[in-house]
């Protein structure tokens, strides 16, 4: 009888153990499912992030292009500025070169009053030396 009871008890323990291991397996499966769900979510998030990164990268490229355009424009502007400066400098040099020429006639020729004058000629027609002066009035 005691053996019978012992067997029954062992069987119950065995059954209980079997049931316990079955209950433990279920949570394991749930955990795997949750992990899979998390992984899927992460993958979705990564997939979702990838376009964002692409989208984020695009403005950078646009920004770089804009910067290049800006640099090119600045370079062109610099060239234009340099050309303008050169032209201005050249014009100033020409003016500086021209100024003494413009000032020269009034200084060196003088006025005709008091001197015999004919059309284009000042002085005595039989003066020993001729000064022939080619000029303009600007």
């Amino acid at each position, binding site marked *: 009888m005691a053996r019978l009871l012992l067997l029954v008890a062992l069987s119950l323990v065995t059954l209980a153990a079997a049931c316990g291991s079955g209950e433990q397996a279920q949570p394991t499966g749930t955990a795997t499912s949750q992990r899979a769900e998390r992984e899927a979510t992460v993958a979705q998030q990564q997939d979702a992030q990838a376009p964002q990164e692409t989208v984020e990268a695009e403005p950078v490229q646009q920004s770089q292009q804009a910067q290049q355009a800006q640099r090119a424009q600045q370079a062109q502007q610099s060239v234009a500025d340099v050309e303008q400066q050169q032209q201005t400098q050249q014009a100033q040099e020409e003016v500086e070169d021209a100024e003494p*020429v*413009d000032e*020269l*006639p*009034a*200084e*060196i*020729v*003088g*006025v*005709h009053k*008091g*001197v015999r*004058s004919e*059309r*284009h*000629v*000042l*002085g*005595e*027609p039989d*003066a*020993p*030396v*001729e*000064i*022939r*002066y*080619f*000029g*303009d*009035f*600007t």
Partner: protein
Amino acid sequence: MIVERLVATGKARFVFRHFPVRGDAADFAAYVVECAANQGAFWPLHDRYMAGDETLFTEAGLRRQITFEGLDYVEFVTCMNEGHSVPAVMASRAEGESRGVAGTPTVFVDGEQVDATFEAIEEAVERALEDTAE
């Protein structure tokens, strides 16, 4: 200074030749002076332009100056409008080109080109006088 020290002293005569090289304004001024010269007023207008009188590039300024010199303004305007002075200016310019003139002022003393400074002109005149005396 040329007039006072070289022309008025009888050492030299001074001959002005047109050589307008600085655009339309230079041509215009040359025509004005030649049209004034047609009425006997070359040198007064020459002196005004040489003095830098910018009003002579305006109609009002020209009218005032031409009238002031006692010239007939209608005749002057006719001369300008009909281009009567153009041949004289062109002939003067052609003469300069034949002498190798490329800019202004260009000065010759007895046919020899000299620097357009009073010192250089005076020196050339004195040298020419010495050559004449010899």
